[in-house]
């Protein structure tokens, strides 16, 4: 294959399942965040309007639980996918967990983190990032942590009669605080740090659609993830990952969806900041 062809082709970074799961994650997360925040900040005007938008508190509640079920589904589907990957592609847990493609933090992440800081303060060149950067891994585990904490407390609040058979009554109060503050952390983190890291940072601005399209222009990939590119060309596996780009209509659809999610998320950040600063109690 000559250079010219390769220039037009794109590198496939995410599988179809990954992309579907992320889209479902966005939809369920935004739903959960909007309905949940309307309750958390019920003393603000925007919360009341939001609640009415969802058809009142009651239907907002149903939506919240429905979205929760979807998100839990996403969570478990991903876990099954990991098990499937282990069997089909990695062969062993060792390869999956400690190999080059692992999501787990390793020595190299520490190196890259230190390298990044050095780069930030002008002491070094941009590190040669690989398959997953440390901030991507952090985002990934933040979701795990969030699922665990918010999901478990959420179920407690959903079925308080059942859970108080094992836990004291005040655990419901504790669960409320944890659920709501962890949700605040999650939404705050996703809508600011995650948004910046992946979409809003200047070289990706206004958004990086790779998570929806699954593919990134090869030249861009080469520069963004030099280490991975190097590894793949060395092993000669790069060709396996090259695909045709999506037609413009798909890209446009993706962008509309992405913009919607981005705007909702950023608006919520503004609402929350407003609530925290001006009417907090």
């Amino acid at each position, binding site marked *: 294959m000559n250079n010219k062809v390769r220039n037009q082709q794109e590198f496939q970074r995410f599988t179809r399942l990954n992309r579907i799961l992320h889209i479902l994650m966005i939809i369920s997360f935004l739903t959960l965040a909007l309905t949940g925040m309307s*309750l958390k900040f019920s003393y603000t005007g925007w919360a009341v309007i939001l609640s009415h938008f969802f058809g009142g508190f009651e239907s907002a509640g149903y939506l919240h639980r429905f979205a929760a079920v979807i998100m839990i589904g996403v969570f478990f589907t991903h876990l099954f996918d990991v098990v499937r990957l282990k069997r089909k592609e990695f062969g062993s847990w060792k390869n999956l967990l400690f190999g080059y493609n692992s999501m787990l933090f390793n020595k190299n992440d520490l190196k890259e983190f230190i390298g990044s800081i050095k780069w930030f303060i002008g002491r070094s060149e941009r590190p040669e990032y690989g398959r997953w950067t440390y901030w991507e891994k952090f985002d990934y585990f933040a979701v795990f942590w969030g699922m665990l904490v918010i999901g478990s407390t959420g179920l407690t609040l959903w079925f308080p009669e059942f859970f108080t058979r094992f836990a004291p*009554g005040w655990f419901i109060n504790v669960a409320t605080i944890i659920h709501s503050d962890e949700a605040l952390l999650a939404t705050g983190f996703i809508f600011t740090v995650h948004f910046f890291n992946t979409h809003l*940072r200047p070289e990706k601005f206004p958004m990086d659609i790779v998570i929806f399209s699954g593919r990134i222009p090869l030249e861009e990939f080469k520069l963004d993830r030099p280490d991975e590119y190097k590894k793949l060309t060395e092993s000669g596996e790069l060709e396996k990952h090259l695909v045709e780009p999506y037609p413009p209509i798909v890209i446009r659809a993706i962008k509309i969806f992405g913009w919607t999610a981005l705007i909702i998320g950023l608006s919520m950040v503004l609402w929350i900041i407003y609530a925290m600063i001006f009417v907090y109690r």
Partner: protein
Amino acid sequence: MFNIPVQAQSNEDCLMCHEDNELRGEQNGRNISLYVNESRFSGSVHSELECTDCHQDIDAEELPHREVFQVVDCSMCHDAVGEDYNISLHGQAYNRGDPLAPLCKDCHGYHYILPVADKNSNVAALKIPYLCGKCHKEGAPLQLQRNIPQDKILENYSLSIHGARLFKKGLTVSATCVSCHSDHKILPHTDPRSTIARQNIANTCSACHSEIESVHRKIIKGELWEKEAHILPACVDCHRPHEIRKLFYSQGMADEDCLRCHEDPTIKSKEDGRALFVDYTVKQNSIHKNIACSQCHSEVNASKLRPCSSITQKVDCSACHSEIGEEYLTSTHGILSTEKDANAPVCKGCHGTHNVLGKTDPNSPTFSLNIPSLCATCHREGEQAAVRYTGSEKDIVKHYTESIHGKGLLKSGLTVTATCTDCHTAHHELPHNSIESTINKKNIAVTCGKCHHGIQEAFEHSVHSPLITNTDKDLPVCNNCHSAHTIKRADSEGFKLEIMQQCGRCHEKIAETYFDTYHGKVSQLGYTKTAKCYDCHGAHDILPVVNPKSHLSHNNIVETCKKCHSGAHRQFAGYFTHATHHDPQKYPILFWTFWGMTGLLVGTFFIAGLHTLLWLPRSLQWKKELKRRLKSIDNPPDTDNESTKKEVDE
């Protein structure tokens, strides 16, 4: 007729002839018996008298005497009685030569007159009604031919309380005809000398009912008996002359007299030109149809040509409705009226005048359905009462109409629904700050309890009742939670949401912490199917949690939670319904959980934020770098691009 010579003038001489029971003679063309029963005569009050003492025109020298002699003149001895008789109706008629006029003997008899106290006397109490009834009974010539204003006199009398006492109980002290009309000086009520004249009737009745003024206070104020007797109704105004029961006197005889002038539609007052026309049918359809004009316009004097010329005062309804009158005078309306305030409503303002109807009559302005619009004539926004009102209740009429009471009354037509007067009373309305007012804080529970009695009972046992809680603080009463004129159904959404603010006015802290919990937040979003204050604490039966009867006592709390959470159990009830994470003493777990979470949040954002901020300038640099590098790859020659295009096209 009998030519038997008799020498003496003694009774024996007379009886020589008159003891013959077949002795008869002519008088005024009629054949009558001239028999005198000696033994009966000797039993009479006049037994000591000689025949000639009464039959004075008999000449002893010529016996047998003249066949026709003069009527015995009883007044020769009974001169005072004779005088009375002469001025009486009976005497006047006799003197006119009315053949129906009664003489002494028509009532008393003649030869065998018994003492009045003797029960066989013609004029014994028990016999009097029959005696008078001889002429005055229905259908008797007198009743038919002469102008006697009353009818069914005897029948009515015998049914009256006086007649019944006499005839059924044999009470000889009970009033008979003569007790009221006097025995000999019988005169019409229009004659001021009459015992039944308006001004004398009280004296006549009080001959027996001597203490009536001290026991008749409910109707007539005590002091008025002496001070203003002229404005008081006479006994017979209320108690019909011959039907004395607790019945009101129907249709006074004076009405026609009044109407002689007042039925003229054009009649006007000489003083101020106001119309004086009275539509009698209106009056006759009113609740006062049995009340005579003169009972209300009480200063009329029948002896004047224009009886109403003696009237100096306006109709005083309290002459009859004295309790109501007293109530009214102490009410705001009454006080204003005493101060001669032009805006003050008086009786007729609400009740009308000749057209007054009872409050049970749907056409009456005081019928329950009409009361709101009646009061609204002054109390509607902009009207005379509303403009001087300075309190906090605005748009009273509009709000009432939209309230549950207003809807019940005006939309559902429920006449038992509370109207203005049910809370404010009809005649004793006072502002809420008056201690006597029905809407005073102290009395409002009782006022509402008139209808909502069960709730009043529950409330009076609750912690909010002054009977239970001793405090200087203001305890809430019905209207603090339910409002006064905007009362909503307690199961309406609006009420459910407002009530939390109501409780929160006093229970500030606890309401605030409630709004920190799920229940509170949810209700703040307008959701009503969640626990609100009264769902857990009870509404009217609120008790302290330590009280075993409280809905939240140890024994009851699980049941209370179960109202919504059917699976509730003891441990579930341990949920802090008023928890706050701001109180490390009371809720340390929540406090530290909150600060732990906040620490995590702040920490994460601090690190991530710092990371981002440091990244930003480098990222901008990197963007330029990327552009440069991508260009250098794409750039080599333009042909490169074209060939790529071709390949794609193929």
